[in-house]
C-alpha cells in the first residue's frame, strides 16, 4: 500500500484547495459572490485567490443575490462553469426565484437544450451567535425542488472532494457548508481527490441503532454514539452527504441491520428533511423496525442570539442519547 504524504488541513482550507484546483484545471471556472475577492470571503474560504487569479475570475458582486445568482445561471448556459457563493442559506431566499424558477427548470423547459452546470456554495446553520437572520438550516426547503442536487460535506475529505464532481455535473448543484465546520481540522492525504456525490456514508458502524445526520449534525451524532457506546449501545452513524436525491439504499440497508433509527436534523421538525427520511424508512423498512423512528431537530423558534438559548434550541448529543435510551427500552438489545 502506498502511503500518500498526509497534511493537516482545515475544512476552510480544504474548500479553498478545491476551488483552486478547479480554477487551475478549467479556465471556464470562476468564483463570484459578496466579498469573495478583496475581503477573502466572509468565512475566509477564498482568501488569497484574488491575488492568484485576478478580478476577472474572482469577482466581487453587489449585494443582490437575485442578480448574481441569475448571472451565474446565464454564465452556465453560456458555457462557463461558475461557482457562486451565497453568504448564508438565509440570504439565498432572495435568489430563490432564480434557483427554483430558472436553475432547476430550464433544462426541463428547454427540452434538454440547455444544461446548467452551476455550483452554488452557501454557509448554513447556527452555533456562532449570529442570530436569526444568519443561522437557519433551510436545506430541507431546497431539497424539495426537483432538478437540483444538494450536497452537505461534513468531513475534510468531502469538503476537498465534492466540488469537482459538482462542477462536472450538468445540473445545478448546491453545496451547504455548515458554519461550525470551517475550523474542523484533520489529516488529508496530499493527493486526496474527487469523491462520489451519490452515496451516503457510514461514519461509524454499529448494531443497535442508526443515527442519521448530515452536515453540522454529524459531529453531534458521533458524540452521542461515543456516549452510548460507554453504556453498551452500539450506534451506527450514517452521514447523508447527498440531501437530494437521497440515497435510500444505504439508509434502508443500515436500518435493516439495526432495526432502529434516529434522524438528527438542524432544520425545524415540521416538514423537514428529517420528516422525509423518516417517511422513507416507514415506507421501505416498516417490517424491519423494532421502534418508531425518532427525530431530533432544532426547536421551532427563530434561532436565538444568546449562547445558552442558541445551544438549547439546537440538537445536542445528550438529546440524541435520551431518545436512544427510551427507544431501546428497559432492556438492551441482544
Amino acid at each position, binding site marked *: 500500500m502506498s502511503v500518500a504524504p498526509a497534511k493537516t488541513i482545515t475544512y476552510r482550507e480544504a474548500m479553498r484547495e478545491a476551488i483552486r484546483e478547479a480554477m487551475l484545471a478549467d479556465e471556464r471556472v470562476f468564483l463570484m459572490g459578496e466579498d469573495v475577492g478583496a475581503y477573502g470571503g466572509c468565512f475566509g474560504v477564498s482568501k488569497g485567490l484574488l491575488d492568484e487569479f485576478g478580478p476577472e475570475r474572482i469577482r466581487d458582486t453587489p449585494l443582490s443575490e437575485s442578480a448574481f445568482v441569475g448571472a451565474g445561471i446565464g454564465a452556465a448556459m453560456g458555457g462557463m462553469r461558475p461557482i457562486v457563493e451565497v453568504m448564508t442559506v438565509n440570504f439565498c431566499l432572495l435568489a430563490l426565484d432564480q434557483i427554483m424558477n430558472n436553475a432547476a427548470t430550464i433544462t426541463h423547459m428547454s427540452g434538454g437544450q440547455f444544461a446548467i452546470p452551476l455550483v452554488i456554495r452557501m454557509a448554513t446553520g447556527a452555533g456562532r451567535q449570529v442570530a436569526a437572520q444568519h443561522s437557519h438550516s433551510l436545506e430541507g426547503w431546497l431539497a424539495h425542488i426537483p432538478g437540483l442536487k444538494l450536497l452537505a460535506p461534513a468531513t475534510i475529505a468531502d469538503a476537498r472532494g465534492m466540488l469537482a464532481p459538482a462542477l462536472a455535473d450538468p445540473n445545478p448543484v448546491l453545496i451547504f457548508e455548515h458554519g461550525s465546520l470551517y475550523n474542523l481540522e484533520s489529516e488529508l492525504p496530499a493527493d486526496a481527490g474527487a469523491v462520489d456525490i451519490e452515496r451516503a456514508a457510514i461514519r461509524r458502524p454499529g448494531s*443497535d441503532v442508526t443515527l442519521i445526520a448530515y452536515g453540522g449534525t454529524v459531529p453531534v451524532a458521533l458524540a452521542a454514539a461515543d*456516549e*452510548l457506546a*460507554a*453504556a*453498551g*449501545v452500539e450506534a451506527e452513524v450514517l452521514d447523508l452527504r447527498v440531501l437530494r436525491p437521497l440515497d435510500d439504499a444505504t439508509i434502508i440497508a443500515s436500518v435493516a441491520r439495526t*432495526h432502529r433509527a434516529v434522524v438528527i436534523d438542524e432544520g425545524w421538525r415540521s416538514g423537514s428533511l428529517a420528516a422525509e427520511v423518516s417517511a422513507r424508512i416507514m415506507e421501505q423498512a*416498516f*417490517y*424491519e*423496525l*423494532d*421502534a*418508531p423512528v425518532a427525530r431530533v431537530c432544532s426547536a421551532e423558534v427563530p434561532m436565538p442570539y444568546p449562547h445558552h438559548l442558541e445551544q438549547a434550541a439546537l440538537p445536542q448529543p*445528550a438529546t440524541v*442519547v*435520551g431518545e436512544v*435510551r*427510551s*427507544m*431501546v*427500552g*428497559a*432492556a*438492551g*438489545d*441482544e
Partner: protein
Amino acid sequence: MSDFVMPSLGADMEAGTLLDWYVKPGDTVKRGDIVALVDTSKAEIEVEIFEDGVIDELVVPVGVRVPVGAVLATLHPVGAKVAAAVGAPVEPAPPIPAPAPRAPPIAAPAPPPPSPPSAGPAPPAPAPVPAAAGTNHRLRVSPLARRVAEQLGVDLATVTGTGPNGAITRADVERVSTVAVPAPQAAVAPPPPPEPVDRQAAMRAAIGALMARSKREIPHYYLQLEIDMSRAIEWLHETNLERPVNDRLLPSALLLSAVARAAVEMPEMNGFWIDDAFRPGSGVHLGVAISLRGGGLVAPALHDADRKSLAEIMAGVRDLVQRARAGRLRSSEMSDPTLTVTNLGEHGVDLVHGVIYPPQVALVGFGAVRERPWTADGMLGVRPTVTATLAADHRASDGHTGSRLLTLIDRQLQKPETL
C-alpha cells in the same frame, strides 16, 4: 445461541416429521448446508440451515412430528462458548439505566447479570402489563417483533413488552421463544414410529386444503393471449441443429425464460400477498409445476430464472423434476417461488386457467404449442401458436397490469435469440 426451527415448506404446511439428521452436536454448519430431512405431507424435503454456527443440541429426535416454528436444534456462533448446561441465555448487553433527564455521563450501574429470563428486567414507571390474553386493546408490538414472532411461532399474548411504553420488541419475543422451547415438544405425542403414511391421501388432502384456501381467499381474475410461436420454434429448430443431442432445448425452456424476463419488468406480479399487503419477491424464482408419478404435484423454485441461460433453465428443470420425483427437494425450493408457471401443453390441452399458489399473486399457464389457423397481414395461414393464460390476485393487481405481463411474455417470445 440461536434456534433452528421447523421451517414452513409451503403455505400448506402446518407440521412436519423429522426423518433424519445429517448433523450431530458439535458439527460446524454454514448457511445453506443441508442439515435434516423432513417429511411434509407432500414430500420429503432436504432442509437447509440459514445461519453459520456450531450445533449445540438436537432437540427433536428422528421420527417426531412437530408444528412449523418448533425448535429442532440449537446452535451457537463459531468461536463462542457453548451456553451453560442450564441454558442460561447469552448475556444481553448491559441494560441501560432508566432514562435520566439529561447529562451526567451514563455511569452504567453494573446491574446484576440477567436473571432467569422469566423474571424480566424491572422496567421504569408504568409496569408493562403482561399482555394478558383476552384483553381487548391492541397489543403494542414493533413490526419487527411481530414478524419474528410469526417466524418463531410465538404467541404474542404470552410476551411481556419492555420496549418504549411497554411495547413488545424483538428481544422480548426471542426471550420467550427460548423459554418456550419445551412447549411444542411436550405437546407432541410419544414419538410414533415413522408411520407408513398414505402419501397419496396426505398429498391430496394438502393440495385440497391449499387450493380451497386459494379460491376462498384470493379474488382471481383470468386473462388469456394466443401467441404466435413461429419465430420461436424456427429459432429453436436452428439452434438445436448446432447442439449435441443432450443439450437440445425444448419449447418449455423458452416459455419459462420469457415469463422470467417479463416478471423482471413487472415486479408487481412477482411476489407475495401477506398481511393485506403486497411484498415483492427478492428475485424471480419461478415455481415450476411438476406432476408426480402416481398423482399430485409440487411447484418448487427455479431460482433466479431471469438470470439463467436457456441451457441452465433446461438443466435446472431437469434437476428439479428428478429430485421432485425422488422426493428430494430442498427447503428453499419449497418456500421461495415468487411466481408459478404451469405448462399442461404436453398433455395436449389448449389452455389452463390456473389456481394461484398462496401467498403468490399470480400464476402463468401454457397450453400446447401446435399449428393453428392464424391471420397476419390480412392473410390466413397456419402457424404454431400457444395460448398463455394468467390467473392473478385482484387484491394485488388489476387486469390492466396483468395484460401487460402477458404482452411482455409475447414480446419476449418474438425475439427468441435474446432469451
